[in-house]
């Protein structure tokens, strides 16, 4: 389309047509509005859920976990309970430090333990950590409900998940006793309580200083696990590399542990796009229909416009701009309506399931979602308006005018 046809006259003719059939124009706008609104609301909600799970599960858990092979475990279990030290730790740490895809790693000693409070006694486990390393793995400060995080974790403190704290009926500054399988025990002060929003963490996880645990175990150097965060989660090269170099280790990655979540995210994405696409397709067909019938009804107008000096390009513009105006108005309104609906969903209380702990539905108000929805809506209308417009431009004035 040349610049000549983008002028006021053509625009005013187009607007005149839109105003002349208000009902149809409004219906077409509503069609676009519904399509784009649905898209915005759905993608806000679905990606809100995705982000929430991502945040809770992947930010709270390492991408890969390195631990001794289970063969060694079973071999030693015949002697009674004994934690297995991770062999080749220095080599593992060196490889992780040098690997470009590793953003952080942390050594841990994990031991089963019985947690005893004044009123309750629960079997569980304790994670012995090095606060300086662990800080890079888990952003605990954001998830603290009470007390303080890794920075203030001394050898006399314990951090725990909110659900576990409830079960033990303890709060910050209360003390609990931990009893290890070897019979040793110690009393620790609760210095912080955190919540990740998922029960698999909040119900069981505790952090204590690794030194405390090693001391109790009587093995000052023991490390049982190395947790690793990756830059690109899908690239598991480092796992392959380590398994090749060291025979005594076993590596779990996030895919094995969180397959359902990954699949769930994909399903939600597909659902969002297919439903929105279907709705916009319907809206597009609506516009196509309206424009098509207008072109048929207005053949005489088109013919006469052509005889008095309007080129085929002008005619395309006159009809295409109608569709674009419908698309712009519909998509623009959808931004507001989509925001409002998303907002109301985001303040709607949600009954927590066994797996997720949240107060309201998670919504991701990303500007991109609104931008994509807007663009998507306008593109649909341009596409659906184009073919009737081209049809209009091909009207032969002689045939029409002679035909009466």
């Amino acid at each position, binding site marked *: 389309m040349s610049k000549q046809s983008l*002028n*006021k*006259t053509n625009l005013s*003719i187009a607007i*005149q*047509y839109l*105003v*002349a059939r208000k009902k149809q124009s409004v219906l077409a706008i509503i069609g676009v509005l519904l399509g784009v609104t649905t898209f915005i609301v759905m993608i806000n909600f679905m990606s809100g859920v995705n982000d929430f799970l991502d945040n809770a599960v992947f930010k709270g858990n390492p991408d890969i976990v390195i631990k001794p092979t289970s063969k060694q475990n079973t071999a030693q279990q015949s002697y009674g309970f004994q934690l297995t030290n991770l062999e080749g730790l220095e080599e593992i740490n060196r490889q992780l430090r040098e690997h470009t895809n590793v953003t952080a790693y942390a050594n841990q000693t994990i031991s089963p333990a019985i947690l005893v409070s004044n009123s309750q006694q629960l079997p569980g486990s304790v994670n012995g950590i090095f606060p300086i390393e662990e800080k890079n793995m888990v952003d605990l400060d954001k998830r603290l409900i009470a007390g303080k995080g890794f920075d203030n974790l001394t050898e006399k403190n314990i951090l725990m998940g909110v659900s576990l704290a409830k079960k033990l009926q303890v709060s910050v500054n209360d003390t609990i006793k931990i009893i290890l399988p070897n019979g040793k025990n110690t009393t620790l002060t609760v210095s912080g309580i955190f919540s990740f929003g998922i029960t698999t963490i909040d119900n069981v996880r505790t952090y204590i200083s690794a030194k405390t645990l090693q001391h109790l175990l009587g093995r000052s150097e023991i490390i049982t696990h190395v947790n690793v965060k990756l830059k690109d989660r899908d690239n598991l090269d480092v796992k392959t590399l380590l398994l090749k170099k060291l025979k005594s280790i076993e590596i779990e990655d996030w895919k094995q542990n969180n397959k359902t979540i990954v699949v769930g995210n994909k399903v939600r994405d597909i659902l969002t796009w297919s439903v929105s696409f279907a709705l916009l397709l319907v809206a597009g067909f609506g516009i196509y229909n309206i424009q098509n019938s207008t072109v048929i009804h207005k053949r*005489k*107008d088109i*013919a*006469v*416009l*052509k*005889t*008095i*000096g*309007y*080129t*085929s*390009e*002008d005619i395309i513009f006159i009809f295409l701009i109608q569709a674009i105006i419908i698309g712009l108005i519909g998509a623009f309104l959808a931004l507001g309506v989509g925001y409002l609906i998303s907002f109301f969903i985001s303040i709607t209380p949600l009954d927590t399931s066994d797996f997720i702990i949240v107060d309201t539905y998670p919504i991701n108000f990303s500007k991109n979602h609104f931008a994509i929805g807007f663009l998507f809506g306008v593109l649909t209308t341009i596409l659906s308006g184009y073919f009737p417009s081209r049809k209009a431009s091909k009207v032969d*004035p*002689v045939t029409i*005018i*002679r035909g*009466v």
Partner: protein
Amino acid sequence: MILEANNIDKHFLQPQSHHVLKNVSLKINQGELVSLYGESGSGKSSLLYILSTLDTSFSGNLKILGQETKNLSQKELTQFRNKHIGFVYQFHYLLPEFSVLQNIILPAQKLGAKKMNDLKKDAVDLLEELGIAEFVNYPSHKLSGGQQQRVAIARALINDPQIIIADEPTGNLDEKNSAIIFKTLKEIAEKRNNTVLMATHNPNFYNNSHRAIEMINGTLRL
């Protein structure tokens, strides 16, 4: 010479093969009012659509204002019509949603030579000449048939084209309105010194034209 047609030949293939124009040649001078008459189906309209550059599927040569029309693209032809040729049809073909004024200035807006205020003044002047100035802001569909046809003439004249082509412009009108239209067209030729080429069935009109040409079976009887 304002218009010169040489050996215009045209066949219709649909609905059945028909030799509608047979080697028609015609010359028209400036300021002439020329009428074409003849039986329905004799080829009057076909000739007019070719002479007005709307129909380009013919053999032969057509020169308007010294310009060989075969050398122009469709787009150039559209611009050429916009500037030099005005149309009046049997039916008025006004855009019903548009006001009388908006209808009249459509060709001028496309031409873009004058400012809006000047166009409005031109349009009102034309409507005054045609005796319907009071309807300038009416929606065009509210006017009577005769009034609408006069609005169509105003639209044809707004760019002051050298040639006006009218295809049975009074075909749908009563006697009184027909007379007004004919008088107007004649004045266009005589006062404005523009050329008018008109197809008509009305003997009063073709007998009062500067030149009347009968068309029989696709040929001109000069």
